[in-house]
């Protein structure tokens, strides 16, 4: 695998068009890239990160010298295998590339231009373009956050974020960490934090786990998921971690940093039950309410989306992972949250399908192997839907808020200001609230507050979820100079 730090990458990496550009080097993108390359395509694999693996296989930087990185991961051998295939392949790995948009090239749907800025945090300010005949979007997910009083206090961190910081930097946000929110990721996070030496006094889950029992078929068909749950369950027991279901953190206490949290019982709709609050001492809180597919690159090209059972939007895909825009495929969390194993399966299907298209060999997609992959995918998707339905946020979560709670962390817009925009100025959707209050207009472009603002905008009694998929013009904020340097008439020409 030709590989070099992004900033020193030879300019010929950006020259001739690739057969396939893969955006995202997590389970899905990595599998898609090596599969297509092994079938004979020229492939560029772009990722913001310096290392492959994505969120699940996030690994410490080599300089940290971890001899047992697998201690923080399940299913390590699958990743080792992917890395081996990548090394052996001709895939051009473009690390440190933050893709901010994908545009149609001069040939319409048969040529795409992938625009990226380089550097560890995209501040290298070197705009680059990669041209490709087909594109695989494998950008993964971000964590869904719902606000509550005190959630901006230092020491409150995303659950997936705590996991990511632990896996990559070998650090913990505190010594006594409560894990809270909703979704299966919480169990994984709690067991790694505990294994790494943190005390986890409680895992606080707003839903019950009965939702799974209502769909026993999907569970029985996915024994690996059961095994995974048992592994986490056993680890949690061993570390004396208590799982409290139908409960939520309704307040964080502390002045300079987290000192304690109040955990309250919630009803089926996630409404806090009066008088049930109990204080738990801790110095950090890791919180998240499920994951949201990152689909901006695709939706700005007009790709159709579907509503998922937990109220987010994922890309609408056909049986071979192609989006509604021909030539653009998607795999992994972009097509709906489903975990690492599903992401790998979908990556393999998408990589094969892109190769079949480019090589003009449709028979590639009718092999026994692809049929088996598709069966596996369908089974895992069914389970993912069960899981999503079991953790859909109840509309009562808005009662966790008081008027002074910041909802938009970037612009410091409070729940009170948003309610005022809704009640007094008649705002009914996130876009109007944004114009009136600046909620969602900050650096993160509404990634952290989008779900919450949409719920509040929809008003009391409305569905608990946003009415429309988010549209952000740029997938990552880019320096103004980069936009200025773009020549619209030269979308397929070399940069600078």
């Amino acid at each position, binding site marked *: 695998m030709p590989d070099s730090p992004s900033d020193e990458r030879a300019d010929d990496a950006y020259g001739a068009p690739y057969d396939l550009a893969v955006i995202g080097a997590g389970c899905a993108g990595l599998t898609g890239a090596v599969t297509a390359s092994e079938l004979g395509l020229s492939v560029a694999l772009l990722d913001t990160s310096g290392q492959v693996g994505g969120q699940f296989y996030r690994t410490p930087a*080599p300089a940290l010298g971890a001899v047992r990185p697998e201690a923080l991961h399940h299913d390590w051998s699958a990743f080792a295998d992917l890395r081996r295939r990548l090394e052996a392949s001709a895939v051009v790995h473009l690390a440190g590339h933050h893709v901010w948009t994908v545009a149609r090239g001069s040939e319409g749907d048969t040529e795409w231009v992938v625009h990226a800025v380089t550097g560890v945090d995209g501040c290298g300010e070197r705009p680059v373009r990669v041209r490709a005949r087909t594109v695989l979007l494998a950008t993964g997910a*971000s964590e869904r956050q719902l606000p509550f009083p005190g959630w901006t206090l*230092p020491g409150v961190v995303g659950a*997936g974020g705590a996991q990511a*910081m632990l896996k990559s*930097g*070998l650090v913990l946000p505190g010594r006594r960490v409560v894990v809270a929110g909703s979704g299966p990721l919480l169990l994984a996070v709690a067991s790694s934090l505990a294994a790494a030496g943190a005390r986890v006094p409680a895992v606080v889950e707003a839903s019950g786990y009965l939702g799974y029992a209502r769909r026993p078929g999907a569970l029985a068909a996915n024994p690996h998921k059961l095994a995974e749950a048992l592994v986490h369950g056993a680890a949690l027991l061993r570390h004396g971690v208590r799982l409290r279901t139908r409960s939520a953190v309704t307040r964080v206490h502390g002045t300079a940093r987290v000192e304690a949290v109040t955990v309250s019982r919630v009803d089926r709709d996630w409404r806090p039950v009066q008088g049930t609050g109990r204080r738990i001492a801790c110095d950090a809180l890791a919180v998240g309410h499920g994951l949201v597919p990152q689909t901006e690159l695709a939706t700005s090209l007009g790709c159709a989306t579907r509503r998922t059972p937990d109220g987010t939007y994922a890309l609408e895909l056909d049986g071979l992972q192609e989006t509604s825009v021909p030539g653009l495929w998607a795999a992994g969390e972009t097509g709906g949250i489903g975990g690492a194993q599903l992401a790998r399966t979908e990556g393999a299907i998408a990589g094969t399908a892109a190769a079949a298209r480019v090589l003009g060999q449709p028979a590639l997609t009718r092999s026994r192997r692809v049929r088996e992959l598709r069966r596996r995918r369908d089974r895992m998707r069914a389970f993912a839907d069960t899981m999503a339905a079991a953790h859909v946020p109840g509309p009562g979560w808005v009662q966790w808020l008081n008027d002074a709670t910041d909802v938009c962390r970037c612009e*410091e817009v409070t729940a009170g200001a948003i309610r005022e925009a809704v009640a007094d100025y008649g705002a009914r959707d996130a876009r109007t609230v944004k114009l009136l209050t600046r909620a969602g207009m900050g650096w993160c472009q509404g990634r952290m507050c989008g779900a919450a603002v949409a719920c509040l905008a929809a008003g009391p009694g409305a569905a608990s979820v946003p009415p429309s998929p988010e549209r952000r013009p740029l997938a990552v904020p880019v*320096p103004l100079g980069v936009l200025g340097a773009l020549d619209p008439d030269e979308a397929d020409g070399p940069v600078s």
Partner: protein
Amino acid sequence: MARDRSPAELVGAAPEDPFEISFDGRTLTALPGQSVAAALWSAGILAWRTTRHGGRARGAFCGIGQCYDCLATINDRPNRRACLVPARPGDTITTQEGHGHAGLAV
């Protein structure tokens, strides 16, 4: 399992030699390969930015480059995402006060 184990022990880390960085004039030790945010966390520091309006303390939140809450001034350059930028020997990190958008098309 031992209660007092550390993340580094768990993965059997044998890092290259640690080095010094400074945070608001205080000297800290960082490990090669750690992000600035990770180095600050391991020194027990959770906040290195104050917000523009309320002046409230913030640090890393999403941990993966998406929330921009971890912005820090690193070697005099503001608005760097500390969760993404690797710590380097001699780095000077300062608490970033206020101002946000400068020069960004968000």
